[in-house]
């Protein structure tokens, strides 16, 4: 049995807010595939950008606390974070704790003050929801469980920039066949292809969406997103599949803003890859919270005979 069959689950803040549909669909897909999630008790923010901007070592501590609870209190071997930001920060904390004495000292000091065991590098494996399904179930098993093939649906897979960068915090990637690639990620492509979707050749799959500029320079973000949406449409995609709540909301919000502010309308829809897999597995769009997406994909799914 795969070590990913039962994992500690770290949803992170976004999945309790704007990414609620990602949370619901991740759980629904896990259930349909017989994968178990054990939510990290009393989890906290990973430090995201806000804390990292002010003091990266405090961010390392915040991520380490989540890993400490999973490893020491829950005795988990693997923690799964579906959000690219959380996933990235946990991996970064793991790297810093393995390589930086000052980070170890800070984490140890704050952990003692907070009254929990200090997390030590190597005690836990952090994975993304893509690893969870790809390695926990795999394409072959997925194909066997398929009830509603996504055949006829053209998908552009958008991974965003935090899933693969910086390369040094993802030592398990770029290990040849079977491993994920940091320059040409393909796990989402592989899973959706197994579910019957037709992946289009999409050259902006890891391009910046301007998420960092969203508040300070919305126009740049809108233009970057618009370019991604146009490229997906030019590649022939009906849908952009996402695997990060921040990327997903960025694409959705700036699609609306591009129309309002720039008068540029695009038709491509956004769906979380878990929503697409769920549809393939016969889970109802309602249970996958498709109705919660800003980008209304229900019409398209009906048109394709998928809802």
């Amino acid at each position, binding site marked *: 049995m795969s070590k990913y069959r039962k994992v500690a689950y770290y949803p992170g803040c976004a999945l309790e807010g704007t990414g609620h549909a990602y949370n619901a669909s991740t759980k629904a897909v896990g259930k349909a595939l017989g994968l178990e999630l054990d939510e990290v008790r009393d989890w906290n923010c990973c430090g995201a*950008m806000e804390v*990292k*901007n*002010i*003091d*990266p*070592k*405090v961010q390392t*501590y915040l991520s380490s606390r989540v890993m400490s609870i999973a490893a020491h209190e829950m005795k988990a071997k693997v923690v799964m974070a579906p959000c690219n930001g959380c996933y990235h920060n946990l991996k970064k904390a793991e790297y810093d704790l393995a390589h930086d004495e000052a980070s170890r000292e*800070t984490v140890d*000091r*704050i952990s003692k003050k907070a009254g929990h065991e200090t997390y030590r590098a190597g005690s836990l494996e952090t994975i993304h929801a893509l690893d969870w399904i790809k390695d926990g179930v795999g394409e072959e098993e997925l194909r066997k469980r398929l009830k509603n093939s996504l055949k006829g649906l053209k998908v552009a897979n958008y991974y965003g*920039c*935090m899933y693969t*960068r*910086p390369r040094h915090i993802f030592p398990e990637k770029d290990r040849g066949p079977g491993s994920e690639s940091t*320059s*040409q990620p393909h796990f989402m492509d592989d899973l959706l292809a197994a579910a019957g979707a037709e992946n289009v050749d999409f*050259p*902006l*799959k*890891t*391009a*910046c969406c*301007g*998420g*960092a*500029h969203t508040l*300070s*320079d919305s126009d*740049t973000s809108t*233009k*970057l997103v618009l*370019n*991604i949406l*146009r*490229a997906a449409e*030019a*590649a022939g995609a009906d849908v952009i599949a996402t695997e990060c709540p921040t990327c997903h909301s960025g694409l959705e919000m700036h699609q609306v803003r591009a129309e309002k502010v720039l008068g540029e309308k695009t038709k491509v829809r956004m769906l979380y890859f878990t929503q697409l897999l769920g549809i393939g597995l016969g889970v109802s769009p309602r249970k996958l919270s498709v109705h919660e997406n800003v980008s209304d994909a229900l019409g398209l799914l009906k048109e394709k005979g998928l809802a």
Partner: protein
Amino acid sequence: MRQALLARAEAVLEEWLRARGETPTQDTVETFRLLALHRQGARGVPSFNACRETCREIAYHYNLLAQGADERAGRMMQMLVAHLELFVRGKMEVEGLGEFCCASRPLRRDSNAEERTDG
């Protein structure tokens, strides 16, 4: 068209390098000056790697067009170059602020991190 687009992409990276007080390299990486310019531009600025694959895709589409790919590859290359322009423009505006993504390096540089973590 492909030469003009490649030259435009190189010009964008040259602008980034000059803004940082550097002389744009004439070297090439995998026969592309664009990739050498990106490598130079990312030195000391890890967040600049967020456009690494965009540059590699531009090179790839250049090669596709050189081998006679259709108009669609040309349109895609245009969008890639536009993306690089937008990304670098955004980076230029926050020059000196970028870390990985939206981090504020000056905040870190100008204050004593130890003091805060002691709290």
